C-alpha cells in the first residue's frame, strides 16, 4: 500500500503544481480553458489525497510495522479507535491529514459556490492547489513522508503516547486543523478577488459560510484542547499560555475581528482594505501556528515533534505573506471606502474599537510568545514571559472586549441619538450592576473577577433585551404565542440571533475564567483511613478519606489507583479515583513514562480535582494534590453555546430570497444560499 500512497502523493504534487501554475497563467494569457483546467486539477488533487489517506489507514489498521509511521505511533495492543486516529498523531500523518482536508475543502468550494462568482473560481482553485502543493512537497522533500518504509520489520510498534490516548485528544487536533484549513478558503477568495479585480462585496458573500465554519472549528478545537489539558495534563488548569496554545488563539482572534468588521463593509462599504488584511493575516497566522507547533523554535511542553519541517513553513509563510500583501498594495487605489464615519457613538466605531482590541490582544499574545526569540536577537539574552505577563495584559483588554460585546449590537448604525442610547442601555446596565454589587456585599473582594461578572451580566442583559423586544414585536404584529414568536424570530434572522448566542457563549467563558481566581489547591500525604479537609472558595468543606492504593493490569497498561472517599459538608458524595498508568507493549515491556489520570468530580459550582502523585516507598501512604476549581464546567458549557450559536448563524435554508432581488445585504446572502442548493 505504501507504493500506492507514494504514487498518490506524487500525482497530487504534479496536479496541484499544474493547477497553481495554469490558474494564474490563464489570466496573463487570456486563456479561460486554462482556468477550467486549474479547477479540474483541484478535483484531481482531492482524489489523489483520498487515495493516499486510505493507503495510510490501511497500513495502520493492518499493523504493517514495516512502515515507519505505523511503527512509531501504534502497537498491537493499542485500542482500535486510537489506531485509526493515530493517522494524525505524528507529523507526517498530520501533514497528510492537512493536505487531505484542504483538497476536500477546495473541491467542495468549487462545487457549492454559486455561478455568479465563477470568475473567481480559477484563482480560488489556484490558491488551494498552491497550498496543497506546499503540504505535499513538505511530505515528499521534508523528511516527513508517512509512507517511508523501514529496512527491517519490528515485531511491535512503539505505541501511542499515553497523553494522546484520550478522547479529547482524538478530536482536538482534527478540529483545530479543520479550523486552520478552513481559513485557507476565505484566503483563496480574497486573493481571487484581488487577482480578478472583483472588489465589490461579492467575494465576501461567496465565502461567508467558510469564515463562520472555520471559526466554529477553531473555537471547538481550542475548547477541546483546554478540556484535554485539564483532564490529562494534571496541573489543574485548562490554559497555560503555552506557545502552542497561543498559536491556536491568534488566528481565532483575527478571524473574530474579521467577522465583525466585515459587517461594516457589507452595510456601509467601509474597511475594504482592513478586511482583506485581516483575512490574509489570519491565514498567515494559521500557518504560523503550524510552524510554532512543528519547529520547536520556542520551548514548549506541548511540542510533540521537532524537525526541520518548521523551516519549510517559515519560507512558505514569508513568501506567501509577501506576495499577498504586495498584491493588496497593487490594488490599494481600487479599494477606496464608500462612506465615512459619521459619529463616534455608532455601531461602526464600536466595531472598529472591538477590532482594535482584538488585534491588540493578538499582537500582545504574539509578542509574548516570540519574546524569547526577539530579546535574544535584539539584546543577546533570552528573556521569557509567562502566564503573569499574559494575564496582566489580557485581563484588562479582555474585559474591554467584553464591554464592547455588549455595546456593539445595541448601538445604532451611523449615529446613535441620546434617546437611542438610553432606550438600549438602561436595563442591561442595571442587569450588570446589581449582581456585582450583591457579590461585593457578600464579601467578594477580587476586583477583576467582579468586573468580569458585572460585564458578563451586562452582556447577558443586552442579549436578553434583544430577544425580548424581538419576541414582543412579533407578538404584537402577528398575534403569535411567545414560543412561536421566538422560534420565528430566530429563524427569520439566524445570522443575527446566532451571533447573539455566540456572545452568550463568550460571556459564559469570561465568567468561568474569572472563577479560576478563586481556585484552592492543597498538597497532602494520606495513609489508608486518614482524612484531610479542604475548603473551597464557595464555602463548601470537603473531606477526603483515603481508601488506599491498589494495583492491577488493564488492557495495555499496569494501573496503580489511589481512591478517596469524599464528603461535602458532611454528606457523602462518592469516591474519586486517580491513577498512575504504566503502559506496556504486547510482550509486557514498559513503554513510555508512567502517566497520571486525574480524578475529577465536576459540578456547576466547582470541580473537585484529585491528582495522585505517587506512593511513599511502595506503601499505601500516598501523595495527593487536591484542587477545588470553581466554575470550570461553565467553560465547556460556553464552548457548547458558542458552537451552537455559530452553527445557527451559518445554517443553510431559512428565509428565501427577497423576490424583488434588492441589493439588500441580507437578501443577497440568502439568494446566494438558494443558488448553492441547486448543483
Amino acid at each position, binding site marked *: 500500500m505504501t507504493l500506492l500512497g507514494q504514487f498518490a502523493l506524487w500525482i497530487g504534487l504534479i496536479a496541484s503544481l499544474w493547477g497553481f501554475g495554469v490558474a494564474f497563467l490563464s489570466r496573463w494569457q487570456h486563456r479561460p480553458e486554462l482556468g477550467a483546467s486549474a479547477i479540474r486539477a483541484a478535483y484531481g488533487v482531492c482524489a489523489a489525497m483520498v487515495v493516499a489517506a486510505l493507503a495510510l489507514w490501511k497500513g495502520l489498521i493492518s499493523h504493517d510495522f514495516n512502515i515507519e509511521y505505523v511503527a512509531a505511533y501504534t502497537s498491537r495492543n493499542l485500542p482500535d479507535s486510537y489506531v485509526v486516529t493515530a493517522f494524525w498523531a505524528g507529523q507526517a500523518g498530520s501533514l497528510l491529514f492537512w493536505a487531505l482536508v484542504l483538497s476536500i475543502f477546495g473541491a467542495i468550494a468549487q462545487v457549492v459556490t454559486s455561478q455568479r462568482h465563477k470568475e473567481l473560481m480559477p484563482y480560488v482553485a489556484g490558491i488551494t492547489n498552491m497550498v496543497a502543493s506546499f503540504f505535499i512537497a513538505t511530505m515528499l522533500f521534508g523528511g516527513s513522508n508517512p509512507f517511508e518504509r523501514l529496512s527491517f520489520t519490528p515485531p511491535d510498534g512503539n505505541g501511542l503516547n499515553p497523553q494522546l490516548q484520550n478522547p479529547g485528544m482524538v478530536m482536538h487536533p482534527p478540529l483545530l486543523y479543520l479550523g486552520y484549513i478552513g481559513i485557507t478558503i476565505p484566503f483563496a477568495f480574497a486573493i481571487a478577488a484581488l487577482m480578478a479585480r472583483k472588489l465589490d462585496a461579492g467575494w465576501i458573500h461567496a465565502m461567508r459560510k467558510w469564515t463562520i465554519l472555520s471559526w466554529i472549528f477553531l473555537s471547538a478545537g481550542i475548547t477541546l484542547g483546554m478540556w484535554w489539558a485539564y483532564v490529562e495534563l494534571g496541573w489543574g488548569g485548562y490554559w497555560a499560555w503555552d506557545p502552542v496554545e497561543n498559536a491556536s488563539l491568534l488566528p481565532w482572534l483575527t478571524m473574530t475581528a474579521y467577522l465583525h468588521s466585515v459587517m461594516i463593509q457589507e452595510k456601509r462599504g467601509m474597511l475594504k482594505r482592513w478586511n482583506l488584511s485581516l483575512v490574509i493575516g489570519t491565514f498567515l497566522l494559521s500557518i504560523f501556528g503550524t510552524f510554532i507547533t512543528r519547529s520547536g523554535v520556542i520551548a514548549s511542553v506541548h511540542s510533540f*515533534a521537532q524537525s526541520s519541517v518548521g523551516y519549510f513553513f517559515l519560507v512558505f509563510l514569508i513568501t506567501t505573506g509577501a506576495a499577498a500583501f504586495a498584491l493588496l498594495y497593487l490594488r490599494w487605489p481600487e479599494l477606496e471606502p464608500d462612506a465615512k*464615519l459619521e459619529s463616534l457613538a455608532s455601531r461602526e466605531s464600536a466595531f472598529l474599537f472591538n477590532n*482594535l482590541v482584538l488585534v*491588540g490582544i493578538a499582537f*500582545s499574545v504574539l509578542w509574548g510568545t516570540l519574546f524569547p526569540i526577539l530579546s535574544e536577537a535584539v539584546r543577546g539574552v*533570552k528573556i521569557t*514571559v509567562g502566564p503573569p505577563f499574559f494575564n*496582566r495584559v489580557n485581563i484588562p*483588554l479582555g474585559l474591554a472586549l467584553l464591554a464592547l460585546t455588549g455595546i456593539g449590537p445595541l448601538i445604532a448604525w451611523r449615529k446613535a441619538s441620546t434617546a437611542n442610547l438610553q432606550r438600549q442601555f438602561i436595563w442591561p446596565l442595571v442587569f450588570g450592576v446589581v449582581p456585582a454589587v450583591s457579590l461585593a456585599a457578600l464579601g467578594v473582594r477580587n476586583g477583576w473577577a467582579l468586573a468580569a461578572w458585572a460585564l458578563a451580566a451586562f452582556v447577558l442583559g443586552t442579549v436578553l433585551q434583544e430577544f425580548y423586544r424581538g419576541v414582543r414585536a412579533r407578538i404584537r404584529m402577528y398575534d403569535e404565542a411567545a414560543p412561536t414568536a421566538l422560534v420565528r424570530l430566530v429563524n427569520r434572522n439566524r445570522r443575527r440571533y446566532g451571533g447573539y448566542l455566540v456572545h452568550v457563549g463568550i460571556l459564559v467563558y469570561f465568567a468561568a475564567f474569572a472563577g479560576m481566581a478563586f481556585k484552592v489547591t492543597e498538597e497532602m500525604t494520606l495513609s489508608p483511613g486518614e482524612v484531610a479537609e479542604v475548603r473551597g472558595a464557595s464555602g463548601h468543606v470537603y473531606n477526603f478519606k483515603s481508601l488506599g492504593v491498589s494495583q492491577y493490569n488493564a488492557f495495555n497498561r499496569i494501573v496503580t489507583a489511589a481512591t478517596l472517599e469524599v464528603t461535602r459538608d458532611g454528606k457523602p458524595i462518592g469516591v474519586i479515583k486517580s491513577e498512575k498508568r504504566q503502559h506496556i507493549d504486547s510482550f509486557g515491556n514498559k513503554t513510555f513514562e508512567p502517566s497520571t489520570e486525574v480524578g475529577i468530580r465536576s459540578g456547576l459550582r466547582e470541580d473537585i480535582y484529585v491528582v495522585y502523585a505517587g506512593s511513599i516507598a511502595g506503601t499505601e501512604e500516598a501523595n495527593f494534590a487536591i484542587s477545588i476549581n470553581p466554575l470550570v464546567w461553565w467553560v465547556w458549557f460556553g464552548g457548547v453555546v458558542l458552537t451552537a450559536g455559530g452553527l445557527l448563524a451559518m445554517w443553510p435554508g431559512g428565509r428565501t430570497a427577497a423576490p424583488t432581488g434588492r441589493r439588500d445585504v441580507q437578501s443577497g446572502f440568502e439568494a446566494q444560499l438558494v443558488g448553492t442548493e441547486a448543483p
Partner: protein
Amino acid sequence: MTPRTKFIAGATIIVASVVFLIASGVKETGVYFLTPTELFSRVEQDPTFYDVGIKVGAKVVRGSIRRDDAKQQVDFEITDGGKQFPVTYVGLVPDTFTDANEIEVIVEGKFGRDGVFRATEVLAKCGSRYEAELQEAKKAA
C-alpha cells in the same frame, strides 16, 4: 472635533494602552532564560544575579535524581555539558520527569550563593525519545 478625529483619539488610547500593558508587563514579569554556562558567567560578572528569579534550560544528569517522597522533595543535578549544579525542588514533578534518559528540563527559581538552585517550578519536555530511538534502530539495522 470631527467624528474622525474623535475616533482617532479613541483608537490612540486603545493602542497606547496595549503598548503600555505589553511594555510594563515585559518589564515586571520577564525572567531571564539561561543555560548553566551563561548563568555561571553572569553571576561571576554581577553578584546581584544571585537570588533573582530566573529560568534555566538544561539536561538532567543521569542517575542524579534523589526523591524524598515524605517531604515531596526532589534533588537533582542539571548540566548543559559545560557547567553543572544541583537543583532542589519541593512539590509534584511531571510524569515525564524520570531518570530513564537525559531529559530536558526548564527549571524556574533562584540560584543561591551556596551554588544550589531552588526551583519553584520544574517543566520536563515530553520526549520525542521514541522517535529518536527508532531513528537509531534504523541506522543500526
